[in-house]
């Protein structure tokens, strides 16, 4: 891919902030898709546990919990998604303001020192940019807190998946099938954990 070209007078277009939001959104989409998969897997596990009867009573309880976990996870991700879509407006505002400020600065530089109104225009622009950046930082903090909360929820999901593995060992003739289901749970939850780690490292604004 080619690097973005400077538009004129060496002012490079600022695409980093929007690119970060796109990455955050993509991770969220991936987790939402995985949460949907867990929900289906949990439903199948509930049916399998019913067929296995008394030998899989514990597994059945855990499958119900995993299904609830998947639904909670979907809700968390929906709220994260809402936050990021709201942040697109804030990031766009910052990007626009930065671009305007850069072009105006170039205009003032070409005009030489002492252009009437230049100081006021710079101050107004800087104030507006600072206000937009404060809004963006606050959104970023909220997003990070929400990701941490989701990570704790996923920890619980990991515990449920491990317990399901243990319960699968007592599943009698269904043991192998239950073991396969619980291993799938553990893998999917590990995948969500990795996505959340990536998400936790993304920032809407540079520190």
């Amino acid at each position: 891919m080619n690097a973005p070209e400077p538009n004129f007078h060496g002012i490079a277009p600022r695409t980093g902030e929007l690119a970060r939001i796109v990455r955050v959104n993509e991770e969220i989409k991936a987790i939402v898709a995985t949460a949907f998969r867990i929900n289906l897997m949990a439903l199948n596990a509930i049916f399998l546990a019913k067929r296995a009867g008394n030998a899989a009573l514990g597994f059945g309880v855990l499958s119900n919990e995993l299904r609830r976990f998947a639904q909670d996870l979907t809700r968390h991700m929906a709220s994260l998604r809402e936050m990021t879509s709201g942040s697109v407006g804030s990031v766009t505002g910052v990007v626009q303001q930065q671009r305007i400020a850069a072009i105006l600065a170039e205009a003032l530089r070409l005009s030489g020192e002492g252009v009437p109104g230049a100081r006021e225009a710079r101050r107004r622009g800087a104030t507006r940019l600072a206000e937009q950046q404060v809004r963006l930082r606050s959104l970023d903090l909220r997003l990070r807190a929400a990701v941490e909360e989701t990570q704790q929820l996923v920890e619980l999901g990991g515990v449920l998946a491990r317990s399901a593995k243990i319960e699968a060992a007592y599943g009698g003739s269904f043991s192998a099938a239950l073991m396969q289901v619980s291993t799938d749970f553990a893998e999917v939850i590990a995948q969500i954990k990795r996505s959340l780690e990536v998400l936790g490292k993304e920032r809407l604004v540079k520190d």
Partner: protein
Amino acid sequence: MKQAHCIYQDEEHRWLAIARDTTKPGYIIDTNEYVVVHGEEALLCDPGGIEIFPSVFSALSAECDPTRLAGIFASHQDPDIISSLALWLEFKPDLKCYTSWLWQSFLPHFGGQDSTFVPIPDSGMTIRLDGLELQAIPAHYLHSSGNFHLYDPKAKILFSGDVGAALLPADHNELYVQDFSRHIRHAEGFHKRWMGSDRAKRDWCERVSRLEIDMLVPQHGAIYQGADVQRFINWFAALEVGVLRS
């Protein structure tokens, strides 16, 4: 770099032409911007696109205090006319933008708020600039469906937007038309293609023929003055427009 040239001066009343930028990238159409200065106020006609804002701003600032800008006149909605609006407003947030009512809800995509825009009715209106009365003259469908030119009866200058425009070769940098027959060749293809309505063209020719015009100043190319003004109107009246090729 663009430079502001004073094309008219009568005491505190001036017209500046910011024309012919030889340093701009070749892929951007060359544009002329005009500033009407009267007393303590100034009006910028078709301020141009985002990419040329720094050179227009610095050219204007060299000749006129930019804080005196009271308004912007946008002949129509094209990006080479008015996409720099947000930048001018960044410098002076209380600027008024005079444009056809038709574009009142479109131009905010370039910048500005509801209070920024002064909609011009189809029949035109008077724009006051520190006591000077300028006339927004209807030029609809030439080429935009909501299009105005600006007439200054005191200076006898008609800012004619895209009418009169010529796409001149890079080495033709004259401010005024020197040889009408040679110049008009560079205007012909543009007018045939961009001006879509023969009826609108005839209406415009009749309307402006009633005005006293010493200079016809277009948004692209050189300025027509003296007898070349009527020569241009006659040429335009006879031209077949709204055609892809001649």
